[in-house]
């Protein structure tokens, strides 16, 4: 089965096979990342523009590193000193980037739907690096990649996603990926941040931490984005921690082999005890490392390459 997709906008629109193709391509790249020479020539001569219009550290660095590992040239678009500050529209900015002969755009934007909008305007591939509260497909892909490394097949596995689901693009991308891969997804947190409407995406919604964590194979914590909530969705960070923070007692409800995940950045002592974040069940830093391989796979495939060629092109 050949890879035909040029843009990566959502996981919702990916097939299970496409997710598996990205994962297997990422696995091949991950092997290379273990070598002393980590660079492959796959995208030599290509220019990738990182159009990050919203603050990001991890994702931006991972995309940057992924592109460089593939030998692409990377141009970072700095929102603070850029033309968007002078009132240029996103369309004009993007068309200019294309006119500068960029081969691919990676976009992070606070407004949901922006990557789809760009993909309709531009002829070059558009990769969504997070759009508002909508999706963060490479995060969902790297999270499920990490889960598979630890658990094997995700079919029938219990995954609890805990925290601010309403405003989370990470949650949405993971829900879509996990459902396609056959996992059971339970969303848990305060009712104001985990509205019932998420059941329409095929997830269970719970406000009872104990039953949601019981026997879970994975617990994924999401950052409480207090900057987005304006202090209306729950009384205080203190109350949140006391009701929904993951601590040792609560972690004991999980399957003994369960892994603890977090897309970062972490609020230590808020959604997770500091000790747990650094504990042996935590795979938080593995997620970061896998983020490079998964993004290499996405850039590689969307640039028009085929999954089965990875190995030959990396020899």
């Amino acid at each position, binding site marked *: 089965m050949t890879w035909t997709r040029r843009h990566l906008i959502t996981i919702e629109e990916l097939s299970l096979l496409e997710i598996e193709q990205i994962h297997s391509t990422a696995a091949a790249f991950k092997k290379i990342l273990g070598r002393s020479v980590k660079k492959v020539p796959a995208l030599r001569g290509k220019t990738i523009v990182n159009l990050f219009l919203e603050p990001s550290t991890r994702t931006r660095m991972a995309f940057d590193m992924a592109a460089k590992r593939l030998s692409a040239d990377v141009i970072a678009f700095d929102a603070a000193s850029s033309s968007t500050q002078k009132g240029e*529209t996103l369309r004009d900015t993007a068309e200019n980037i294309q006119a500068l002969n960029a081969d691919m755009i990676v976009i992070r934007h606070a407004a*949901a739907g922006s990557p789809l909008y760009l993909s309709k305007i531009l002829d070059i591939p558009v990769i969504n690096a997070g759009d508002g509260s909508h999706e963060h497909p490479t995060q969902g892909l790297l999270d499920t990649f990490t889960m598979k490394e630890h658990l094997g097949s995700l079919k029938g596995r219990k995954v609890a996603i805990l925290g601010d689901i309403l405003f989370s693009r990470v949650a949405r991308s993971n829900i879509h990926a996990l459902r396609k891969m056959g996992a059971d997804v339970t969303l848990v947190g305060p009712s104001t941040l985990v*509205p019932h*409407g998420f059941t*329409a995406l095929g997830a269970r919604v719970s406000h009872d931490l104990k039953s949601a964590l019981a026997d879970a194979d994975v617990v994924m914590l999401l950052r409480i984005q207090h900057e987005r909530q304006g202090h209306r969705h729950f009384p205080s960070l203190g109350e949140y921690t006391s009701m929904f923070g993951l601590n040792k007692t609560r972690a004991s409800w999980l399957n003994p082999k369960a892994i603890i995940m977090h897309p970062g950045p972490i609020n230590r002592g808020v959604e997770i005890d500091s000790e747990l974040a650094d504990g042996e069940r935590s795979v938080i830093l593995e997620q970061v490392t896998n983020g490079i391989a998964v993004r290499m796979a996405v850039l590689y495939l969307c640039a028009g390459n085929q999954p089965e060629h990875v190995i030959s092109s990396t020899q």
Partner: protein
Amino acid sequence: MPALWIRNARVIDPASKRDGTGDLFVRDGRLVARLSPAERKRARKIEAKGLVAAPGLVDIHVHFREPGQTHKETIGSGTRAAAAGGFTTVVCMPNTSPPADNAGTIQYILDAVRRDAVVKVLPTGCITIGMKGETLAPIGSLKRAGVVAITDDGDCVQSNELMRRAAEYARMFDLPVMDHCQDHSMTEGAVMNEGDVSIRLGLRGWPNAAEDLIVSRNVIISAYTGAHIHMQHISSARSVEIMRRAKADGVRVTAEATPHHIALTDAALSTYDTHFKMNPPLRTEADRQAIIAGLRDGTLDCVATDHAPHTDYEKDKEFDYAPNGILGLETALAVTLDVLVRQNRFRLSHVIDLMTAKPAALLGLPAGTLAEGAAADVCLFDPEETWTYNAKAGASKSSNSPWSGQTLRGRVHATLVDGRIAFALGAS
């Protein structure tokens, strides 16, 4: 001006309960029962076989953007769009730049109407100064300057106390108070209906509860003050139910529904197309059905377009950043006929009533009838003819319509205002 003789039309005038094939006669801009043989000989004749002759349509909710935002629309272009859509009387909203919150601005608008309008335009004035919701506008002076209602459309008055005083004060002048029902505290940053679709798309939701609360508030204030409060563009099923009960209780409230809220739902937003972004937002299928039911049983009084022009470059943005609103005037008749007559089996005369006599009566406008002696404001249309709407080629200065490029059924052939042809198909 020679007399006018419209022949062999299907004349539908709900106000006078007329529905049958016949002729219309116009002398000196007014409808008359008959012309003398000499007048007939000289009369300009319009053959209207196969067409419906209805009263010129009445729209009590349009935005013509003049003064201040004439890059989007002007009174000239807006009224040409109205005429192309069969409308002969429109009521324009005061959220211009500056807002129409004083007699001087109303005078400016009326001067532009006299100079540029091809249909009748009646202004509304603001409820509060600058539509800021803080201080009452000079409502008496606005009335004297010619407004037919007051409204802060787009910016719902949040203070219950101020709304109560506005209603009480406006009642003294017999001025209806029109309200865009939206609790701001519940809709901060909201860009679409709150529900399954907003959850999927990751867009901030505008809960119907924010509309229902203000509709309820307005019912209570109307009952308390006796003032006529009109609810603009009802979009929620519960608001329809609140209106139904209020009317059963005899409260002086009225309400309108837009063609887009009866034709579309929030499912249309799945591609983040800003041509489906408006305020209040498109809601669910259950809401859409409730609005149609409300129009059927009279809970909702009329259809109004909320014609809201924005330029291409303003709409061509990230969904969150694009302005609210779509064009309505040139597609309203076809869309409404399609939804109400073809899909929901309303009688044609009922739909015409909802777009003529009903809105005219709501604001006490001398319009919406083909009765003898009335102004010869007439809409001639073919209810079955299909045509492809191209918003860019339309009369409006803007083209922000979700129906652009679509084939619509029901086409306006001519629009007469005071017996003069304001629009004729193919004669632009």
